[in-house]
């Protein structure tokens, strides 16, 4: 669970039934609440996480008829966190990240249109 004192500094970016992403402006980072843990990602690692998740070929995994365990390890270089996820969780995480980046893009557009012009 997230402490309430911390919550005041965090802004909801996007959430789904399975997880949520928060942004912390003071620390300039994101917190990903997923698969039973809350992990902190700075800018570089957050983009690396996105790249790692997006590059998983979900369709190929669904069609894979071998008896390999249905588990994917998402390991990010120079990052403390590692995810060991099932296929269903990967789909959920991808959903969460896609939504998050749409929201961040939207936030960028709002900043661009509203604030930049008034400076």
């Amino acid at each position, binding site marked *: 669970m997230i402490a309430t004192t911390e919550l005041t500094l965090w*802004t909801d*970016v996007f959430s789904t039934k399975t997880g949520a992403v928060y*942004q912390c*402006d003071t620390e*300039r980072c*994101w917190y990903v609440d997923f698969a039973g843990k809350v992990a902190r990602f700075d*800018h*570089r690692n957050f*983009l690396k996480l996105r790249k790692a998740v997006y590059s998983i070929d979900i369709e190929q995994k669904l069609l894979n008829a071998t008896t390999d365990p249905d588990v994917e390890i998402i390991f990010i270089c120079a990052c403390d966190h590692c995810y060991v996820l099932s296929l269903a969780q990967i789909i959920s995480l991808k959903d969460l990240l896609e939504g998050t980046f749409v929201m*961040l893009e939207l*936030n*960028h557009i709002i*900043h*661009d249109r509203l604030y930049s012009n008034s400076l």
Partner: protein
Amino acid sequence: MKDLLRIKSLLSSDIEAILNQQVKKEAFSSSAYLAMASWCNRNGYDFSSEYFFKQAEEERQHQLKFYKYILDMGGNAVSPEVTGIKQEYNSFREVFEDALDQEISVTNAIKNIYARCMKEQDFVTMEFLNWFLKEQREEEYKARRALELFEVIGEEGTGRWQIDKHVGQIKYDSEA
């Protein structure tokens, strides 16, 4: 909520991705020119070989320009893998035909990036690309001129020897 992605990088992820593609394209060009230099040298066309060595070096510089721009703007520059370089040519003329094809493809790629920047109103990158657009004038001119030599001199007799000698003298100094 702060716009953290923008604070960290001037480039959108789309622009960063196509600039990285261009890094790869320039690296490919540089390697292709190196292969052309090797073929020309092996077949006795020393002036052309020298010309292609210079072209390879220029393409490498273009690659670095893109690479450093991505980094300077806060993006992630990716060192490219270059594979599938053609090493053998059927004729002296084919080398120059391929060189022109390559330059046309580079011009098109830069035009595509420019169009994408225009759509995103990324004027900073557009301004950066202006240098490359001007550079492509020279690159295409030189490649086209080299092929023209095959027409005006002809390959018969000592023609190829003459063409080789003249390739080394191709210059583009238009102030326009």
